[in-house]
């Protein structure tokens, strides 16, 4: 019985800093260095009310989704990590995990598959910031004509998780994302054939050809953090009344929607804000 009894070895011999979610702070730092020009010069992101985001403890950030390949998630994650120094875990469709290379990079950069168990663990047990887009792919795949019109907020699952985890929901309204990669046409059959959630033809593709697959238009980003919503319920219950959950989800949705309308009303130019 060598090993177990003779030399208890509890040390950590790892050389990398990948955490249990696959996020690596070193990779994140590198990604921030690369992304900073896009954030500051391309999108010229401006925040309003960032002080409403808790500087410690768990919170669930909820945003509106837009643009064929949404730029909203990286902008939010970058902005908060830069200004508050807190990691943000961006929750997205598990589809990302199935992609070679992209899936790994996504995970190292702080991406986590959107699953209730994952969100609960992040928020409740580890007190982290998690970012979700309750509209999901429906938000990012909608045609340009429906821009900034919030879709259904799933089944209110995000509210239930926040209740169970006992953390506030912090809505973030984003203007600019929809214009970065407007969808002209949807190809649902081809998407099904390829086994991907949706396949759009974007204005970027028409304007730039293959480059348009990855290069967004330089729309001006404005982000407004709304007041955190807390739920006056016991955490860790097995079940929360569905009517209450749906009602809270709807309230958050309409708060986001009216913030968006307000911001759009104040916006003079898509490119200059």
């Amino acid at each position: 019985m060598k090993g177990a009894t003779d030399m208890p070895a509890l040390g950590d011999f790892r050389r990398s800093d990948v955490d249990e979610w696959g996020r690596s702070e070193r990779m994140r730092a590198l990604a921030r260095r690369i992304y900073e020009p896009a954030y500051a010069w391309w999108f010229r992101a401006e925040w309003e009310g960032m002080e409403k985001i808790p500087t410690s403890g768990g919170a669930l950030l909820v945003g509106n989704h837009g643009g064929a390949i949404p730029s909203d998630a990286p902008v939010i994650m970058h902005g908060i990590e830069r200004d508050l120094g807190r990691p943000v875990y961006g929750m997205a469709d598990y589809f990302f995990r199935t992609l070679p290379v992209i899936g790994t990079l996504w995970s190292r950069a702080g991406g986590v598959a959107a699953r209730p168990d994952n969100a609960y663990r992040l928020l409740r047990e580890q007190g982290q910031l998690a970012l979700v887009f309750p509209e999901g792919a429906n938000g990012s795949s909608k045609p340009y004509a429906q821009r900034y019109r919030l879709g259904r907020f799933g089944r209110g699952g995000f509210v239930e998780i926040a209740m169970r985890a006992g953390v506030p929901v912090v809505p973030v309204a984003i203007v600019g994302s929809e214009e970065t990669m407007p969808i002209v046409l949807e190809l649902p059959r081809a998407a099904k054939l390829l086994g991907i959630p949706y396949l759009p033809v974007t204005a970027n593709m028409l304007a730039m050809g293959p480059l348009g697959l990855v290069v967004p238009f330089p729309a001006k980003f404005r982000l407004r953090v709304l007041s955190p919503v807390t739920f006056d319920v016991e955490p860790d219950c097995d079940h929360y009344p569905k009517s209450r959950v749906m009602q809270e989800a709807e309230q958050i949705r309409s708060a986001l929607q009216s913030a968006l309308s307000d911001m759009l009303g104040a916006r003079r130019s898509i490119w200059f804000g």
Partner: protein
Amino acid sequence: MLVTGADTFWGGRVLRSLEADPTMEVLVGLGTRAPSMPLERAEFVRADETYSILRRIVDATQVDAVIHTFLLVDSSFASTRTLHEVNVIGTMNLLAACGDATSSVRQLVMKSSGLVYGSTERDPNTFSEETPRARPPRTDIERSLIEAEALVVDFAEENPQTAVSVLRCANVLGPDIVTSIGKNLSRPLCPVIFGFDPLVQFVEEGDVVRALEFATREHLAGTFNVAGDGRLAWSEVVSLCGSRRLPLPPILPSLPIAALVRLGVYGFPPELEALLRYGRGLETARLRAAGFEYCFTSAATVEQFARHLRQAKGAGRETTYVYEHDVEQFFRHSPAVVRRPSPVGPSRGDATAGRRSRYPTDTSRAVRRPH
């Protein structure tokens, strides 16, 4: 105390470890082949692979605890049929033998595997004992283990007088055990799936033996994950073990190395393919809360294994114990063997000096056999 799979890595190790405890009165090891460890006090019984003889043994010995270690958890060592025979039918016979109204069995411990959770893109990062499967099992081994566990759950319901614990182990790594993962890591080039770098969790072989013993002694009931703390990216595991990455295509990754797998150079069962894509993490709080302490974290397990690989590279292959029935019987029963009063187990005091010559190498090394 009855231990199944005495001919496999786990059964042998558990028996050895229990032999050292003088409070254990009767120890019976059950296996289909010769035991994997030199046994001192334990009686060894040879059975067929479905353990049909079990009931008679349980009745005759009136054992109060059964440790079921003989579940196959690596499908590269067995065909679909064998998997079913061993994991499902074997467990069924075991439970039938223990589940009598007059049965003396009060504790049943089963060594299962984290494979029952699967490994798919829809899975959560960390599985707790309660996490349901996201998808139905795709591999034979997962199917057979799930079926075996379901049998145990039924058994626990029908026999409230018996405490039943199921230990779901993460991927085991250690100097002695032979697994597909260990085999791959010992090669200069280790298979990875291109573009995927999953987080994997390990548990040290000694920790598994201690967990099995712990569950038996503490009369644990319920399901428990057994895994070292922390997780490592597969690429890092490969580099810690001094190997380089051999990237396989994301589509049909097993195809390019099929010939090498056939030759026994690599082990690449379907469940490993899934693991190398999506990884698997286990929540270990429950067993810890019951009072169990691990000796090794995941990273320390890998480091220890890497150290062992470097040692093996430096010193060559060591010879291992081979069981010979007549010789064992001689040591156990012959009046010619001088027995001095040594209460505790094997190869620790002077009493075993004569035995040393039988096992020129370290006797604690198991025969290298699939677990």
